[in-house]
């Protein structure tokens, strides 16, 4: 114990950049004075005036040394202690300082809709509402949650089937054979993106009068603390201001509804919007308040050039052969729109979400009241239906709200700095490209697997293979809208000389055919069932990547390891490419036999940019017991 303590004390070194303290300075000064001023003064003892002067000089040096150490320490995120400096370091490292985070919760909405008088097997279409985003619900403890996106009970899939109909419960009338009304619940079914997501916090709208004086990088500070999201910023002239990461970012992504045939798989498209009116948000950890900083350009001289024309800045030489040196005021160049526009002589309206914290993580089944309902019906809705449906609306949260967090501590922010330094917004490596694709919001389509290969034709090009999944979880060719969104999404991060060819992954559908000998004391059917279940797990598509080979010997081992199996009499991998018995397969024809060119020492390799899929494992894995 004592040894440990001694070791600890030994290891703990005092940080000192000058390696000087009061005593060090004093002894050095004494040596200096005796060397160079020995003939003018000799007494430097403590009670003497000379000693006092030495002490004062040493004291000043000690204090300056302390502050020098302090200043150097304040440059390093690990050793800085002053909150203001830490905030600057953290912000410069790209970490966004936030206040308390709001909680997220999935809400279940229930409505009672009368049956269609013409077809009582369905609810009346005109009476099915859309609960609009912005609807506010409240927990028992008074925490408010706002619905983030519309909940459309009339939503249908690509085949025209009501998405929420699967959860419909019929309420019988006096005639028990006829349904009088239906209870609908928002639920798209498992495996699909659920709606009904709500976020905690209050929505606040503030107005700021901006005087008619130009101020570059004008800032306004919002009145409420813990601002988690700026919802909108607009001015009197209806200009919309967009939030950007830095003011040099002049383009933002915009969500646009996809109206093409693949809108079910890809509900929205990405569009790029030029954002001359833009702002950044900084939050102070000390005050908890958020400050919005606008650009430096003047709106009345706003040009559409994202990059100013350098020729406009050149000096004209009218009839001169010589010219003298000239001075430039850089502020004149600063007034361009390259860093966004600074508002002037207008009123800025800012809507934002405020509030959060651990207390917002409310327990399940506690959000039961609707405090602000925003609902929309179709044009043919009858007023009695509207009243009854509105009155029938109920809400619940089957699961607890999550994600609410108190403001991050300084140590938590410190720990984020290191990881943030390695983050970048450019696609340089293969991993960058894959990460960028997987992080594209799912509203723009979801890529299931990505494979990257170098292009043979163009050394600067990369071949990007992508594949999606259908409703049943099977591999499906990615829709065109998804590819277009992907192009828009990654183009902003692509290096100028790089090229990316987006290609579809070739799906190689495979099956298994095997014969095993089973011991006489075992039930053959159960042995086969166990083997098939294990093979299904192994061949699950979640375990496969693009260009990943199949280790055939692993499959054989699974079979042989099953208790009851005495020998593997026959084993063959088969390629299935023809649609049979209503089962649709990929049309890739491929030699999967062990004697073929794709098989090498127990490993089956696919063609370039391909993925193996056992599409219908119940049918494609065929086992026989001898």
């Amino acid at each position, binding site marked *: 114990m004592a040894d440990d303590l001694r070791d600890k004390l030994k290891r703990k070194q005092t940080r000192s950049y000058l390696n000087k303290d009061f005593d060090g300075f004093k002894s050095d000064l004494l040596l200096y004075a005796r060397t160079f001023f020995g003939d003018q*003064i000799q*007494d430097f003892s*403590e*009670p*003497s*005036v*000379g000693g006092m002067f030495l002490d004062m000089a040493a004291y000043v040096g000690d204090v300056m040394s302390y502050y020098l150490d302090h200043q150097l320490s304040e440059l390093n995120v690990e050793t800085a202690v002053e909150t203001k400096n830490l905030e600057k370091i953290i912000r410069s490292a790209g970490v966004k300082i936030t206040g308390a985070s709001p909680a997220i919760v999935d809400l279940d909405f229930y409505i009672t809709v009368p049956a269609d008088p013409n077809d009582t097997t369905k609810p009346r279409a005109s009476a099915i509402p859309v609960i609009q985003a912005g609807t506010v619900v409240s927990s028992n403890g008074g925490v408010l949650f706002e619905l983030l996106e519309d909940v459309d009970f009339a939503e249908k899939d690509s085949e025209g089937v009501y998405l929420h109909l699967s959860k419909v419960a019929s309420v019988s009338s006096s005639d028990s054979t006829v349904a009088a009304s239906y209870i609908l619940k928002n639920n798209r079914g498992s495996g699909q993106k659920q709606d009904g997501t709500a976020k905690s916090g209050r929505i606040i709208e503030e107005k700021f009068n901006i005087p008619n004086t130009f101020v570059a990088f004008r800032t306004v500070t919002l009145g409420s603390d813990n601002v988690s999201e700026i919802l909108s910023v607009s001015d009197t002239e209806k200009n919309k201001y967009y939030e950007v990461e830095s003011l040099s970012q002049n383009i933002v992504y915009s969500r646009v509804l996809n109206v093409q045939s693949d809108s079910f798989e890809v509900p929205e498209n990405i569009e790029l919007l030029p954002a001359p009116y833009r702002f950044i948000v900084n939050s102070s950890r000390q005050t908890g308040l958020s400050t919005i900083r606008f650009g430096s350009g003047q709106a009345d001289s706003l040009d559409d050039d994202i990059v100013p024309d350098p020729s406009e800045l050149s000096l004209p030489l009218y009839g001169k052969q010589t010219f003298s040196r000239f001075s430039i005021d850089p502020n004149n160049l600063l007034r361009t729109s390259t860093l966004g526009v600074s508002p002037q002589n207008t009123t800025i309206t800012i809507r934002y979400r405020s509030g959060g914290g651990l207390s917002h993580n409310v327990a399940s089944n506690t959000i039961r009241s609707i405090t602000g309902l925003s609902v929309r019906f179709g044009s043919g809705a009858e007023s009695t239906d509207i009243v009854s449906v509105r009155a029938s609306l109920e809400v619940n949260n089957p699961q607890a709200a999550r994600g609410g967090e108190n403001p991050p501590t300084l140590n938590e922010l410190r720990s984020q700095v290191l990881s943030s330094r390695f983050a970048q917004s450019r696609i340089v490596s293969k991993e960058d490209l894959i990460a960028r694709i997987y992080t594209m919001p799912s509203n723009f389509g979801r890529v299931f697997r990505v494979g990257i290969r170098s292009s043979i034709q163009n050394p600067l090009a990369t071949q990007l293979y992508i594949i999606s999944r259908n409703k049943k979880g099977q591999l499906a060719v990615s829709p065109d809208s998804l590819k277009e969104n992907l192009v828009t999404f990654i183009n902003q991060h692509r290096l100028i000389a790089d090229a990316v060819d987006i290609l579809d992954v070739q799906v190689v559908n495979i099956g298994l055919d095997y014969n095993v000998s089973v011991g006489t004391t075992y039930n053959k059917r159960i042995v086969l069932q166990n083997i098939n279940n294990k093979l299904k797990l192994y061949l699950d598509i979640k375990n496969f990547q693009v260009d990943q080979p199949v280790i055939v010997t692993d499959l054989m081992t699974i079979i042989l390891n099953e208790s009851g199996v005495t020998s593997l009499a026959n084993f063959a991998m088969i390629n299935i490419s023809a649609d049979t018995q209503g089962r649709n397969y990929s049309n890739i024809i491929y030699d999967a036999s062990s004697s073929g060119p794709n098989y090498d020492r127990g490993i089956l390799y696919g063609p370039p940019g391909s993925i193996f899929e056992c599409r219908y494992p119940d049918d494609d894995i065929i086992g026989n017991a001898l």
Partner: protein
Amino acid sequence: MAVYDFKSVGDKVDSRKYTEVLDPSPIGIKTPLEFGTSRSGLLEMHFTNAGQIKDNFRNLVQTNFGERVGLYSFGANLIELVGELASKEDFDSEAMLRIKNAATRWMPFVELETFESTFVDPADTASGLAHIVMTITYSVVKLSIIKDQIQVTVIAMG
């Protein structure tokens, strides 16, 4: 013819042997500070050990705790006595103790001899405040300073 013994020759009093050589090197700064004259530089200096020690000792007795930069406990810290102690006897005993402690710590070569204090009535002072005048006798045997004296005045509070 008389014969003289050289033992009776002796020396002349102005011979070099008896001439005191003054050390031209200044020892320390004289307080209160004043501009230097003749041999001193910018500030007036002490040229004898006795003068320097007397000056240092006086400064030590006059200094209170916390007044010296970098050395908090330097001084005899007498100022608080003038407001705390009611009787002169109490003041004398405590002041002597503090002076002894300070001298032992900061100027151990000084041997304290006697202490004497005089109370000056406020009516007799220009400031209208009572003064306590302390006279301390000391010796520094190694430097042949015998029974030198310093006089320190502290102004009584209230």
